[in-house]
């Protein structure tokens, strides 16, 4: 039987071109395994062969993904790979992004599976996990042997058409749901889970919960009477008629309105366009979502120093975590530059 053909992607360092000074190295092909590829070949065994190694600089690939996508397919096609193995990238962000980009491009264009490995917090995970099997690896190259072993095992299964799962093969879930027939109905499984939980026995949820960031709370404000406080909300209050076109779900932006001299947010000037609840009370009095009236009274009584000259609003309804992170960082930057000391964040 002919051997399966494996293409291995490495960055400029692991591909033995050089360190950071060579990070702009163009994509290039070397026949056979290079550097860690010898270890990959050993782990793959006799049924698969690393026919070529694709090497490219971290900057070259990660800084212009479009260019890399355009170039790589024609470069690789003549080698007729059955699978792409990329990395491992460990915690290196640009290398991880490069692996994700190339896995997507080659997987789609050549119709082959792609296997890579990186630390679960590598930004390449978000980019690549729908297109590639990403084996969870450590942060540094000390984990090379282990990561390559797992990648080789997974690649071998994919080549032989064997089923793989995140649990059995140590890859990061790809967000793909696969139907399967289970004898016990959902009510029964749910009650069994509940009984196990109440009895302190182990149980496994059928719906894995997303992992949330842990954000350490900032230090308390020393003296609120001297502080500049801003109002920020994800409750979807906009200028009447929504001229800035904030989405009522799945927001792509946040809005910034001047606080000016207003004592409160009146229904003739503002409305609530939230798509997730009955907005009639919020439209009747938008201060119920962005409490400008209450904040003004705190300011008058001297309980807070002064209100920040702008308030910010977006839409939390079904907005992706990625976007929410971007909005949060953007709002935080504006608040910091404007000299805000604290924020009152109201949510629906």
């Amino acid at each position, binding site marked *: 039987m002919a051997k399966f053909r494996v293409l291995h992607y490495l960055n400029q360092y692991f591909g033995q071109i050089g*360190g950071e000074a060579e990070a702009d190295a163009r994509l290039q092909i070397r026949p056979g395994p290079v550097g*860690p590829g010898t*270890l990959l070949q050993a782990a793959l065994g006799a049924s698969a062969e690393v026919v070529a190694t694709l090497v490219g600089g971290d900057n070259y690939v990660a800084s212009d993904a479009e260019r890399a996508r355009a170039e790589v397919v024609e470069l690789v096609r003549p080698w007729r790979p059955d699978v792409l193995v990329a990395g491992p990238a460990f915690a290196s962000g640009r290398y991880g992004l490069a692996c994700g980009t190339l896995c997507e491009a080659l997987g789609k264009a050549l119709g082959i599976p792609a296997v890579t490995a990186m630390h679960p917090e590598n930004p390449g995970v978000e980019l690549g996990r729908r297109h590639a099997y990403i084996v969870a690896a450590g942060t540094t*190259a*000390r984990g*090379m042997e282990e990561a390559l072993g797992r990648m080789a095992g997974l690649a071998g299964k994919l080549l032989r058409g064997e089923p793989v799962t995140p649990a059995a093969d140590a890859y990061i879930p790809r967000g793909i749901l696969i139907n399967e027939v289970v004898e016990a109905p959902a009510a029964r499984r749910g009650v069994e889970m509940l009984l196990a939980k109440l009895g302190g026995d182990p149980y496994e949820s059928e719906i894995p919960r997303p992992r949330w960031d842990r954000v350490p709370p900032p230090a308390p404000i020393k003296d609120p009477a001297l502080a500049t406080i801003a109002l920020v909300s994800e409750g979807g209050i906009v200028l009447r008629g929504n001229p800035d076109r904030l989405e009522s779900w799945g927001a792509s932006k946040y809005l910034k309105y001047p606080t000016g001299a207003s004592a409160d947010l009146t229904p003739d000037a503002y409305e609530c366009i939230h798509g997730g609840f009955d907005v009639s009370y919020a439209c009747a009095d938008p201060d119920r979502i962005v409490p400008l009236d209450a904040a003004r009274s705190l300011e008058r009584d001297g309980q807070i120093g002064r209100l920040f000259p702008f308030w910010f609003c977006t839409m939390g309804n079904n907005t992706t975590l990625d976007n929410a992170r971007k909005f949060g960082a953007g709002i935080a930057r504006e608040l910091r530059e404007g000299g805000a000391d604290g924020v009152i964040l109201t949510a629906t």
Partner: protein
Amino acid sequence: MDLQNQAAILESVRQYGKENLVVLLGAPNAESSAIAAETVVAGDPSYAGPLAGVQLDLPVFHILEDEVRRAIPHALYEAEVGIMDAVLDRDAIVASVETIRARTGKRR
């Protein structure tokens, strides 16, 4: 450890012999110290450089270790290294190098 440094170490071994070499590290944290130490003891763990699969078993120490400090004139050490001793996580660095050193000659 970068590719050039690995090549330089390999060349030094050829030129002077293992028995005449000692490797002194200045890496700023435990993880990078461990990688560098492992590279000159058991071989490059990243399998990228000339020391991939090359078990040199060289004696390796970190500049912050007591044995090294005692071997260097006090005033010189204070002038060149002193402040780093206070800034870096010395205990973790030393422990990581000791762990790798304990493997000398015992691997593979």
